């Protein structure tokens, strides 16, 4: 089932991030898996926790507050809002400081963030920026980001 693959990815995320979140994150994992589509709060928490940008015991609300304090938040989104592949890609690019292509430098946003991650092989399969994002796919994308980050290829 998909749960097994997702748990593996999440395990990698927290191990690679050098945090000790595994035990206390079971509830969070269950909550993410319960989401058919990735929510803004879950995405913000996963990205910032894996990047070590927020403390281990923070939650989605604190993650969003952190994003907004850094000017990285998504406009018109609340914690439970679902986000698209493009919006998630834009968050990934900003949180991990991934340099984009020509158009991304001129017009940074979901469209060109998606294309950048697809070009790097981080997004596999359909890479339309407005497509809905499942929680499972979001975590797989994050797993690839962490693998490349560890190898210094971001």
């Amino acid at each position, binding site marked *: 089932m998909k749960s097994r693959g997702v748990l593996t990815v999440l395990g990698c995320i927290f191990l690679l991030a050098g945090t000790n979140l595994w035990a206390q994150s079971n509830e969070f994992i269950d909550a993410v898996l319960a989401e058919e589509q990735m929510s803004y709060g879950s995405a913000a928490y996963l990205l910032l926790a894996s990047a070590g940008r927020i403390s281990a015991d923070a939650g989605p609300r604190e993650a969003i507050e952190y994003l907004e304090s850094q000017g990285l938040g998504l406009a018109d989104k609340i914690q439970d809002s679902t986000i698209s592949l493009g919006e998630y890609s834009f968050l990934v690019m900003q949180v991990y400081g991934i340099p*984009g*292509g*020509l*158009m*991304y430098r001129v017009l940074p946003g979901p*469209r*060109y963030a*998606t*294309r*950048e991650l*697809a*070009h*790097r092989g981080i997004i596999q399969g*359909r*890479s*339309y*920026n*407005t*497509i*809905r994002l499942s929680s499972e796919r979001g975590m797989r994308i994050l797993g690839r980001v962490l693998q*490349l980050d560890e190898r*210094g*290829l*971001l």
Partner: protein
Amino acid sequence: MNLHSTRRLSWCWLLTAVFLIAGTLQLSAAEGDWGVTVDLEATGRVEEDEWSDAETTFSLNTALWTRTLLPTPDRPGATLELATQLGYLYTDDRPYLFDVDLFRLRGVYPTLIAGRAGLLEQTFGRYRFSDPSGRVLSHLADGFGMGVRYPSWNLNFGFSTTAFQLNPSSSIRMTDADVADADDSDLRFGPGRGIGMIELGIPELLGAHGLRVGLTAQTDLRSPELDDETIDSVYYTLVLAGPVVGALYYDLNATLMQARSTVGTEEEDTLGVQAGARLRYFAEQFLSSRAVLSVLYASGDKDDNISRFRPISRGSAGTVFTEKIEDLVVTELGFSLRPFSAMGNGAAAGIQTGVNWKSFFKATELTADDTANLGVLEPGEGQWYGNEIMLSISARIFADLGIGLSGGVFLPITSEDLGVFGKDAEAEYFGRFEISTGF
């Protein structure tokens, strides 16, 4: 067809395409994407000692593309996608050519057959049709296809026509009449063919060795004028591919052609053969190296049993040597690497360099007809056309900006005993510069 009606048709064609694309752009605001690609290319071609007669061309190819996921109510796991692409091509000799490069509606549905889960795929519209080897047919056409996919096997079939491909975009050039039409600017559409194909694939026939067998048939839809040839043909293709050892992979393909050509009331049945073998080696640890060694054979008019192999879409044997792949043997040795791949993910890491060597041989002995077709006044007595050496360097500087530079030479064999072109043949040089971007 006069100039005014041609222009009127061009604009009707263009407006129809724009209308369709604009509609899908609107749809793609929901779940989908759109973009524009821009490709610039400058090429030069010149024969030795004729430097002042260098043939240079410039082209700008841009396209507006859309991808739209359409709703599929009550079908969990199903996807229905509309893909479109409207292209614009500027070249020195043709200031504009608008064409619909892609208009494809594809549905993929989870299905159960005999209790086993698989996928049912339906495709409709204008898209690329290919036979299992890609050497008989690889061309845009209008039609539909259907397939079922399981982990252990898949089956696909399709029907299409090339009758609505614009003449300058068509590479359906099977007969002399087809070839003559290529330069006829009054013709709106290219040679019409009705095409049917069926293919069975077994991805893991023996371990990781996969098998694909296919039958491709085409019928000539032209209305022949007096003495024009029409041709109907069937192709039976087999492709076997898999690993040899480690990162060394092979693929083998063989195609038998049965054709019936008709001129007036006379009919002639012929058999042709095409076969190829290729070895590829991938060494990621050594600067992302790639090596390829291949050989390809396409039969010529040899005797009563085997005749010229005539594929549906015309391919080119090489880059500088552009003869069609008929009555030909081609050997190839290529190597490429990314010299700065160890430097992480910067622009330099994306630089790729390559060298490619091809040798071309005529599959049958030279005849007077061949000499006339090649335009050779004093031919040799051999079957070796010559060798082509290409060097290339390309770089993907950003995700949305790539450049490429390639150059090469065709060195004809001037030995009268070995060569086709004779002792006076001269080398031909070729260069190309490309930039591709998009937004």
